[in-house]
Every structure is written in structure tokens, then in C-alpha cells.
């Protein structure tokens, strides 16, 4: 961080998840000098490989909106994600579900590209019998075939024997570790030969849907017909299913973010945000004050302890600086506003932290800090009482449990943060 105050705006981004990365990227593009604090976020590592615009159950049946060019640009630079501009992808999950996704990890098989509309004849999708945790090819094939989207297209999923040379102990490897094994050329070669033999045994097969970790094939080393997201009719596209927390998609996304960000200044420090002095922010890192920043982007996620190791009282310090944020909300009711009047640690009555029973919308409701306004686009820029403090991603949540929204808010926050220089310098 070399720029001197008054010439280049200094932006501190707290949090190194998707929102933080987007904010840092955006602030830098708008001419700011960016310092990044914290470590890769928990939410990012939980990425399943799908990128939704709205939480997916809310977007079902809606025509896809066009994505902001800046957002597409960000993902292009990050690499590894496919963002169809005018359609949704359909991805299979390891829970036996077919679901829409606005965009997806390039390793995940997009079924919509395979069978775009009912009425086309599409060959069966091969599901290899592989000894991986939670992977029961036969029952998954039955489950996917019974989904309405598949029935409408007469798309069948067929379990096939496939000897990928897995040892029994391989079943115990985490997905991400398993994925890295395919970097070995010998393994990769055997892998591809196995796919080819499956293809030969089921004439007319249209694709192969493999367990998480099987799609991690370097696009350069794979033959054309086997490349992820490859060629619909001519070849045999192979891709992964969407898997839950701990899958390779989260690891891939985290790795991509780490590559794209400047190295962190502090990874596990206590970082209380103190009220601005003279319109500028001083952070405390390892007991020492930093040089003042013109603006701060708070992108520490709905899981406040996820991006940063915060002391027990620190969430209170942060929250009390943002008087218009509310406590975690559960269906139907506000639990009550957290205001600066609350001193000390915030102890929410845990009785209120209960998932509603039999409420459609409430099953797994977000518990992030809920913003008073419902609009997903609203940023702290307009709403916080403190000028220069911006909030992005799930920390500004209530809505944002999706990667695309986290990025969109991050881009917006980074832009505003970078543009605040003049005001900050004047008052400083």
C-alpha cells in the first residue's frame, strides 16, 4: 500500500470470500489502492458448483434476467465458471435432484445444453457405478429419471459398470482430494479409457454424469470428446454432479479467488472497526493501528466469524456501527433491532432462533444480519449512518445467499468505496 492520501483512494476490504474479492477487484478497477484483510470465507468454500441469481427455489419458472456485464467480466477473469447469458443451466445434484442454476462451475454437467427442449431425441446419460461416498449410481439414476424435467424430455439416466481403478480406500478420500488425483497422467489416461469403454457399451449415450471430483480434467489434456461442457451431439460430454458442502467446487472457487486477490494483510487478526476519525477509518491489526483508509468494505459474510476471527464482542462493535441493520430474522417476525444502545455482547434470545415448522419459506432460512430493506440491490452506501462504510455480500443479507448476488453487491460496494476519496480526503 504505497499510494499517499489525497491522490489514490485507500480502500480496506474485510473478508476474502466472493463478495470481498469482487469488492477488491472492483475498487482496484476504479483506481483505488486496496488492502485485503481476512481469510477465504466459509460460505465460498460451501459453494456447490451452481451460481444462482435468486435463491433457486424462488427463481423457478422465472425467465433469466440479463446479467450485468461487469459481473460476467469478473467471472471471466476468475475463470472456471460458465454464465449463459440468456438461459439457465440445468444441473443434477448428488441428492438426486435436477435443478436450475443461473450459471455453473465448468466441471458441472449442464443438462440444458444436452436437451434444450422437449421433443428432441436425446440418448441416455450414463451414470458410472463408482465407489465414492454417497454415490449410489443405480438409485441416483432412478431418482433423476423420475424428475419432471427429465420426464418431459424423455431423458433417461442409466447406471453403468465402470472400472475407474478405484481402490477401496479411495472411497474414503474427500472429493477435493480425489479430484487432485486426476492430475496424474497415468490415472487420467485410465480414466478416459474407462469413459470410452462405457460409451462403447451404451450406443447413443449422450453424456456421462460423474461424481464430484471426476470432472477435474485439464481441458488441454482431455480429448475433444471428453472435455467438460463439451460438444452436445458429437462427443460424450462428461461432467460432475452438483454436490454439497465440502465438494471440489468450493475448493476450486476458493483457489480461484486466492489467485485473483492481493495477498492478505492479516489473516486471523482481530479487526474491530472503530468509528471513523475525521471521516477516515483506522483499523486495529495485532494491536497496532493501520494507516487511515478512506473507506471500508465489510464483506465478512452472514457468518460473521467466517471471514475473520472476531472476538466474541466484535460482532457487536461492528453491528453497533451500523444502526440500521437488524438481528437475524425468522419467518414472520423481526426479533427487534440492534441499536447502538445495546452495550456489550449481543445475546439474542435463542428461543427465537428456531426454524419454523411446516412453513414453506422457512425451512432453512438465512440467519445472516438482515437488512431492513428487502431489495437485493440495496447497499450500505445509501443506508448506513456512517459515511464510507460499505457492506457487501451476506453481511448485507436477508436475501443474498447466492454467489451472483454476493458478487454483484461486492462490485457495487467496491465501486462506491473507490469513489469516496474526495469526500474522505476533504474531511480528513
Amino acid at each position, binding site marked *: 500500500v504505497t499510494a499517499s492520501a489525497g491522490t489514490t483512494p485507500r480502500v480496506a476490504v474485510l473478508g476474502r470470500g466472493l463478495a470481498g474479492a469482487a469488492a477488491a477487484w472492483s475498487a482496484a478497477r476504479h483506481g483505488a489502492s486496496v488492502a485485503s484483510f481476512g481469510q477465504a470465507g466459509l460460505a465460498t468454500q*460451501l459453494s456447490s458448483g*451452481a451460481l444462482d441469481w435468486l435463491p*433457486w427455489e424462488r427463481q423457478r419458472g422465472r425467465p433469466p434476467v440479463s446479467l450485468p456485464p461487469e459481473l460476467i467480466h469478473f467471472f471471466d477473469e476468475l475463470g472456471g465458471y460458465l454464465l449463459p447469458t440468456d438461459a439457465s443451466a440445468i444441473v443434477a445434484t448428488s441428492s438426486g435432484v435436477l435443478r436450475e442454476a443461473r450459471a455453473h462451475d465448468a466441471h458441472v454437467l449442464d443438462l440444458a445444453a444436452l436437451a434444450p427442449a422437449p421433443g428432441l431425441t436425446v440418448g441416455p446419460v450414463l451414470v458410472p457405478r463408482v465407489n465414492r461416498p454417497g454415490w449410489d449410481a443405480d438409485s441416483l439414476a432412478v431418482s433423476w429419471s423420475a424428475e419432471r424435467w427429465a420426464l418431459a424430455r424423455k431423458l433417461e439416466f442409466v447406471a453403468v459398470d465402470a472400472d475407474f481403478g478405484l481402490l477401496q480406500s479411495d472411497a474414503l478420500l474427500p472429493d477435493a482430494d480425489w479430484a487432485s488425483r486426476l492430475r496424474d497422467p497415468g490415472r487420467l489416461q485410465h480414466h478416459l479409457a474407462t469413459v470410452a469403454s462405457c460409451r462403447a457399451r451404451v450406443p447413443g449415450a449422450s453424456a456421462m454424469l460423474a461424481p464430484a471430483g471426476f470432472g477435474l480434467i485439464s481441458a488441454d489434456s482431455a480429448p475433444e470428446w471428453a472435455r467438460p461442457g463439451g460438444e452436445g451431439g458429437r462427443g460424450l460430454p462428461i461432467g460432475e454432479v452438483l454436490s454439497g458442502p465440502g465438494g471440489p467446487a468450493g475448493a476450486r472457487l476458493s483457489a480461484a479467488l486466492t489467485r485473483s486477490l492481493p495477498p492478505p494483510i492479516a489473516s486471523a487478526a482481530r479487526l474491530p472497526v472503530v468509528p471513523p476519525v475525521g471521516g477516515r477509518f483506522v483499523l486495529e491489526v495485532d494491536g497496532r493501528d493501520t494507516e487511515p483508509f478512506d473507506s471500508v468494505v465489510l464483506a465478512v459474510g452472514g457468518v460473521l466469524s467466517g471471514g475473520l476471527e472476531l472476538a466474541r464482542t466484535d460482532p457487536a462493535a461492528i453491528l453497533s456501527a451500523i444502526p440500521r441493520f437488524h438481528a437475524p430474522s425468522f419467518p414472520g417476525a423481526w426479533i427487534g433491532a440492534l441499536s447502538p444502545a445495546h452495550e456489550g455482547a449481543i445475546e439474542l434470545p435463542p428461543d427465537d432462533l428456531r426454524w419454523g415448522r411446516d412453513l414453506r419459506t422457512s425451512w432453512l432460512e438465512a440467519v445472516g444480519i438482515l437488512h431492513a430493506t428487502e431489495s437485493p440491490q440495496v447497499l450500505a452506501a445509501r443506508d448506513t449512518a456512517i459515511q464510507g462504510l460499505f457492506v457487501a455480500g451476506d453481511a448485507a443479507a436477508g436475501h443474498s445467499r447466492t454467489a451472483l448476488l454476493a458478487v454483484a453487491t461486492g462490485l457495487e460496494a467496491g465501486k462506491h468505496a473507490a469513489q469516496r476519496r474526495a469526500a474522505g480526503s476533504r474531511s480528513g
Partner: protein
Amino acid sequence: VNASSQGPTVASPPDHPTERATAAWGGTGADVDVVILGGGVNGAGVARDCALRGLRVALFERNDFAFGASGNSSGMIHGGPRYLTYDPSVTLSSCLDSGYIQDIAPHLLFRIPFLFPVAKSRIGRPMLELMDGFFEAYDRYQPLKRGKPHARLDADELRRLEPGLIGEMVGGMAFDEWGIDGPRLVMANIVDAIEHGANVQTHTTVEKIEREPSSDLQIVTSRDLLTGKATRTRCRVVVNATGAWAPLAATLAGLPQKAAPIRGGKGIHIVYDRRISNFAVVAQTVDGRQIFIYPWENTTVLGTTDDDYYGDLDNVNATADEVRYLEQAIAHMLPGIRDARAITTYAGVRPTLYAWGKNEDKLSREHEVLDHRVDGAAGIFSMVGGKLASYRIFAKEATDAVMTFLGRNEPCSTHRLPLPGGETRLDALSLATKLSIDAVSARRLVYRHGGRADSIFSHRTAASAHRPRPASAPNGRVVCACEPVLEAEVRHVVRHELARTVADVSRRTRLGLGACGGMRCALTCGRIVAEETGAPPIVGRAQAIRFLSTQAGRRAVALGPIQARQEALALASLRSEVGLDPSDDGSHS
């Protein structure tokens, strides 16, 4: 008269007294001799006892086996030390029965050594002397249940045994009790009853009990809550073994609730993600009650409360204030509890004997068999009160009453004949080697199924014949990695232990009760249940989501705000994979 004898009957063994009895009524053809309401430990115990004594038995359980108090207790087969001071005969019979249960189900019992620290105070010393004398008296009963004599410990010894203990202590006691997995005890009784001809139905509620006008028979109308199908069963005796539901069940026969009075006492437990003590440790609550913490498998269990309960019995949940009450009490002695993560809570309602004007803790844990002849309903009996440890003797007393009513006199043999799995011993390590499965899985299998653990795998092949399994998936495919539970066992409990939902499987196998709360296994389990029951995949998925939803609700009351946020994020991530609400029909374009 002859026509009615062609009605539905269950074939009884030839030259069996039942046939003579049936003939004596003029051929009015009861379907069974006795209908039992309730699949808790008492209902299961009566079903087994009746079946072993040659009666034709039907049992209807409204939810699932061990759904209420039986499956949500501390799981102690104790010797009843609390009765020692005022009714030593109860202690004697408790210890005797604990010994019997060890004989018939040796695989299910495990020793729980207790530590009872005494804090330094004005009365600390005399207290220790009193306790020493008390446990010396209890020691005389311990051999009946293969218990070890107590030991008096000084403060240093206590700290050496249990380094996590804090505070000034004058010393304490070590004594010995036995623990058991409540649902497995119920299942063992149920399986034995089935093997002796009982017709057992879960998720089946009884809607009405009527006296047939022209005979002494009772007509029990029941309804399968999953399929909606109703059934009428004609029987001679009805046993209401519904625990805390007893007053409600009595009304089905037109009796007033107070004919089977219960004072339901709610008790909750909290389960933590790690073992924080070596022994069970007794602690005192803010209001002077005794609670305890004990290590169980990979976890720690803390319990329990005792509060009058008037809510919905089908839906009993721990609340956050109950959690705090227990945690604060144990944290005085074992502050390590604050660092452990609560992974679930569970709650049940004790069917305590009714009494007015007493504190919950002072209510009798005794039991009674009520003959509703006094209420004008001959042939209907209610079992009220009781505790897990006394189930066998309670079942014997109820079965004796049934036998007397039916004019029969076969003796009870439930203290002699082993429960399923208790017939033979099986070594877990050799099972693991033989089947090439994980040793921990094998040990859990042997714990739950005893000598029958290997038979779980023999069922597997036949039904999978239509569905070739990959050669790479041996017997030991793990469904639930936390506990760990094998696919073979999941299929076994659906086929042979009447599991019909994911929650049923969980109750029988502990699937989904580990650290991750079922997040990685509930859906797989749902697929297997759907496949085994011939239901479409969406049904299994909906069951899994209901299970996860219930588990999330049980965890939520024990989480602090920060952990709650992490939890919600994990659940939201799971939802992105699963993608539907419990009420969703799964339709999307």
C-alpha cells in the same frame, strides 16, 4: 354363527389353548386375543410376553417404536438407589430385573461408572459420611446386577479420574450403573414378538375401541397414517400401553381421561459433539436437583429436566431455557461444556403416576396396571407410570392381568429367554475381518444387533438381485459417516424392523444423529427407504427433508447466535443441493 367364524383369523398353533377358548365363545372368532396400544418399551414388552405365552397379539403404534419416553430417556437400567431409604423392596426388584435384562440382552448393556463429587461446604463432610453409608447399603444389592461396589474418593483422586473438574471438593463417591440404547431395547422386544406371531403396525393410530354388542369382544378401529387405510380388529383384551398418551388413549374406549391418570413430566437431554468427561458425573442444578452428564459413543449426553407438561405429545421439543438450565449447572463443575458444540437435543414426557401437590421430582416412578372393569369396561387395561429399567416386570404384571382375564395360566418366561441378538455372542473384530467392513461399524452393529449382526448381510443379496450392485461396493458401504451406519443395516431395518421413514431408520440405527445432523446421509437414506418400500424417489426425499428440518429445529435451541449463523449457512447450502421445502411436490418445469 358359523359364517362369522370365517372372518379374518390368525392361525394359532395346533392343539393350542386359544382354539378351545375360541370355541367356548360360540365361534365368534376374535382376530387376536389381545390388542396392545403403544410401541414404547412397555407395549413392546407386553407384546413379547403375551406372544411368548401363546396369545395372539396385535400392536398398534401411532408414531414409531420408542417415539416417546422410551426413546428419549437417559437410557439407564439402574438399580433404583433412590428408593433405598423408604422402600428397599423396590431397589431389590429393580436390581433383580437389571440382572435379568443383562441375561437376556447382554449385547445392549454397557457399564456407566458414576462420579458424585461433593463440594466443599459447611455440610460437605457429614454429607460425604452419609453418602458413604448409603452406598454401602446399595452395595448389598449391586451383585444382583453385576454392579461393582462403590468407592469413596478424596478430592485429588476425583481430579485424577476426571481432570476437567473444577472447584473445591471434599471428596466424592464412585458407583456403578448400567446404560442401554432405549430404542434398541424396544426393537429387540418387538422383533421377538413378531417372531412369535405378533402382528405389529407402526404409524397406525387407533381411532376407536368399541364393545361388540352381541359378544364380549372389543372392536379396535385403527388407521394407517401413511396410507390412510383403516382396519378393524376384533379382540378379547385391549392393553393401553401408551405412556404419556394413556389418558388420551383411554378416551378412545369411551372412558374419561382420569380413568388412566398420568402426570406427564417433560425431560430433555442435550448431546454434545465430543466426550468431555471420562465418567458419568452427577451435578446439582440451581434449584438443587440432581442431573448428570455421561459420555456415550463419540458424544456427551447431558440430562435431564423434569417439568409438568401439557403440550402436544406428538411434538415435544426442548426449549432454550431448559438448555441453559442444564448447561449452567454442569458448567459449575465441568466448564469444558462451554467449548463443546451441541449437536442435538431430545425431549420426552415421562408417564409419571398422577399425584396432586407434589414437586415433579418427588413423584413416584412406580407403575400400576389398571383394570377398567371398575369403570365398566371389562377387558381393557391401562399401564400407567413406570420407567425404562422396570419395563420387563411391568410387562409381566400387565400380561399376568391379561392371562387372568382370559382364564389362562402359562407362566412368564421373559426373564429367561434371550431377546433377539442375545442368544449368542459375536466378536466385532472378527466380524469386521470376515465382511471386510470398518471395525467401528462392526462394533456398533454388534452392539445393536448382538449375535445376529452378521445376518444383516445375508438378507442383502436376495433383494438386490434385480439390481446389480457395483463390484466395488462391498457390504460395508457407509451411508452415515458420523455414526457410522452401513447401507446393509439401513436395508435390514426397513425389511425386518418395520422402519418406514428416514426418522424410523435413524431411531433404529442412530443414522443422522452424529455431528453433521444427517446432512450427508439423510437423502441417501431417503432413497434407500423409497426403494425398499417401492415408493417414488420424491417420497424418500421428502422424508429426508422432514428429518433434517426436525433435527435443525432440535439443534437451534442449543446454539448461540454465531453458531446459529454457521448452521443456517450450512443448511442453506444443503438446500441448494436438495432444493425443496417439505411441502413441495417437487414440480418444476
